[in-house]
């Protein structure tokens, strides 16, 4: 049974330093929520608090209908997967999976049944008698997930579970976790600093910085409509191209003036009645090559070409800085080519220069 989780005015601090202050977050039943942010932003601290592994200095945590603020971890109906796997080195896989059930005093045959089922889901049958030291990284992480799975918990907590794996395994396990969520429908809270994981897994992403949520929204929204400069810069690879300039009203229209020139903004872009300093953010795919597109353009020179396979990242140097463009995989060009870049100002994001907030 998926249950909602609710953090209400939560504050967490060690001594006099507050890591998280007055934090509110509602996680719907069955939702996959990702807490994303740079290290030290408080996301792991928050996860530990939800798990009951660190104490709150203020506020409440509700899971389902229960206030669990002071409940023991075991009474919260949670399972947790750690970055370091945290498998019990002295127990084999089977014991690792069954330990929590044994603690709970479950009947032996029920334990065996559950371990069997979990092992089947995660394809761990061949390894049940092995110690963690004899497992590969991917297998270890599967056991760690299994340890949560076996206990039939309502809520899964993931603390950067894939960080210690190589790229290929990471992708594989990511898909597995996604599938698991689709099958179980459990509430999952997932902490990571990897935006690809966040984008691919999350129903909603909470982007955090210094203990404060910068934006809480669907991956699509966060990518296309970042709430502020921090989110804009943090999400997307390569990062958004930022152009400082100003919105200038003129004859009922709004123009974007910058070192690259002054361009008229379409109606879909923010309008302004007075001149104000802004920063325009353009995703690499929002800058196009050539003038044929009819977009306002400027001259630049190709400095680096990164062929990624499916697409190619083009780094171009203009007078006012470096711009990145996403090109198709079969892009043919050479370093040193002179090009004209076009800006898709209609779909760009605009942020207030002073506050960094989206307009």
């Amino acid at each position, binding site marked *: 049974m998926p249950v909602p989780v609710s953090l209400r005015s939560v504050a967490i601090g060690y001594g006099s330093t507050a890591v998280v202050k007055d934090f509110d977050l509602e996680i719907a039943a069955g939702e996959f929520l990702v807490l994303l942010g740079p290290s030290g932003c408080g996301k792991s601290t928050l996860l530990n608090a939800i798990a009951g592994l660190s104490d709150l200095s203020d506020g409440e945590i509700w899971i389902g209908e229960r206030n669990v603020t002071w409940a023991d*971890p075991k009474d919260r109906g949670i399972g*947790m997967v750690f970055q370091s796997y945290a498998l019990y*080195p*002295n127990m084999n896989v089977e014991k690792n999976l069954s330990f*929590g059930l044994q*603690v709970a005093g479950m009947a032996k045959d029920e334990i065996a049944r559950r371990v069997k089922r979990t092992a089947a889901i995660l394809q761990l049958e061949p390894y049940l008698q092995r110690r963690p030291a004899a497992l590969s990284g991917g297998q270890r992480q599967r056991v760690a997930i299994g*340890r949560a799975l076996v206990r039939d918990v309502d809520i899964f907590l993931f603390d950067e579970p894939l960080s210690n794996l190589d790229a290929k395994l990471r992708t594989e396990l990511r898909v597995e976790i996604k599938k698991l969520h689709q099958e179980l429908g459990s509430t999952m809270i997932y902490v990571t600093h990897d935006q690809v994981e966040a984008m691919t897994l999350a129903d909603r992403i909470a982007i955090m910085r210094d203990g404060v949520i910068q934006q809480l929204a669907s991956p699509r929204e966060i990518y296309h409509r970042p709430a502020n400069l921090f989110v804009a810069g943090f999400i997307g690879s390569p990062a958004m191209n930022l152009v400082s300039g100003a919105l200038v009203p003129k004859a009922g229209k709004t123009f974007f003036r910058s070192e690259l020139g002054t361009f008229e903004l379409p109606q879909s872009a923010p309008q302004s009645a007075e001149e104000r300093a802004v920063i325009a953010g353009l995703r690499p795919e929002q800058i196009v090559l050539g003038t044929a597109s009819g977009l306002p353009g400027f001259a630049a020179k190709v400095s680096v070409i990164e062929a990624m396979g499916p697409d190619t990242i083009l780094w171009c140097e203009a007078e006012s800085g470096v711009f990145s463009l996403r090109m198709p995989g079969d892009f043919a060009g050479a370093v040193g080519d002179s090009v004209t870049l076009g800006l898709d100002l209609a779909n760009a994001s605009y942020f207030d220069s002073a506050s960094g907030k989206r307009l």
Partner: protein
Amino acid sequence: MRDPFPATARGQRPQRLTTARIGLYAFLLIAALFFLLPAYVMIVTSFKSMGEIRSAQIFSLPQMLDWSYWLEAWSSACAGVNCNGVSVGFWNSVKITVPATILSVLLGAVTGYALSFWKPPGSKLLFAAITIGGFIPLQIFLFPMVRATAALGLYNSLAGIVLVHVVFGLPLTTLLFRNYYAAIPVELFKAARVDGAGFWRIFYALMLPLSLPMLVVAGLMQMTGIWNDFLLGLVFAGRDNLPMTVQLNNIVTTTTGQREYNVHMAATVLTALVPLVAYFVSGRWFVRGITAGSVKG
């Protein structure tokens, strides 16, 4: 030791016995000499007759392998009117050392575990106090401890001397285990808590099995200390439980009379035999235990 370069490698193999290598072994040899010399002297002396000891060099080999001084030291050397050698104290030492070592190691493990992972209020203060306790000379404790054990009715008893050893072993064992547990990832502890295990469950199902190397280290160190103790055994154990070291003292520290160095040396080696054997047998574990654990200060 595996050769990193397979013999099939082409070309002239570089000379392996370089000057540095020779120097290294020379250093080890000199060090070994320094470390073995005292034991050598003690052992050869235990086979020499008194005349030989008086006349010959201390480093010279005995004229013959005479075990009689060992026998005398073990079973008939006199201390006062009792001529029973050090053997009488042997079982007393065992009776004191075994429970005291086990209890103090367990107490240190539990304390270190609680201080490392649970950190209840006052933990830091407690740890600081325990650390400082490690610096206090034992002699200061004698009078108050005598009063305390007498009040508990444990003075002059096996339980009393075991208690005293556990009390004085606390700083060392706690320090060792706290450092050991500091090196264990805290996630492991968190995972066990999420799995629903409580304080004791995590301790005996997870931490204790994981601390096997440190149990060996702390056990050996405590065993050595307790076995070698003289003063506490003398004061607290009571006449019926005097450890071997007290007999040794009685035999060796005679204030008057002829000193039978051969018997003394044999008695000394006999008394030191248990910890020595323990180190020879489990020295590998000792090194491994420290390697596994106390790396994190």
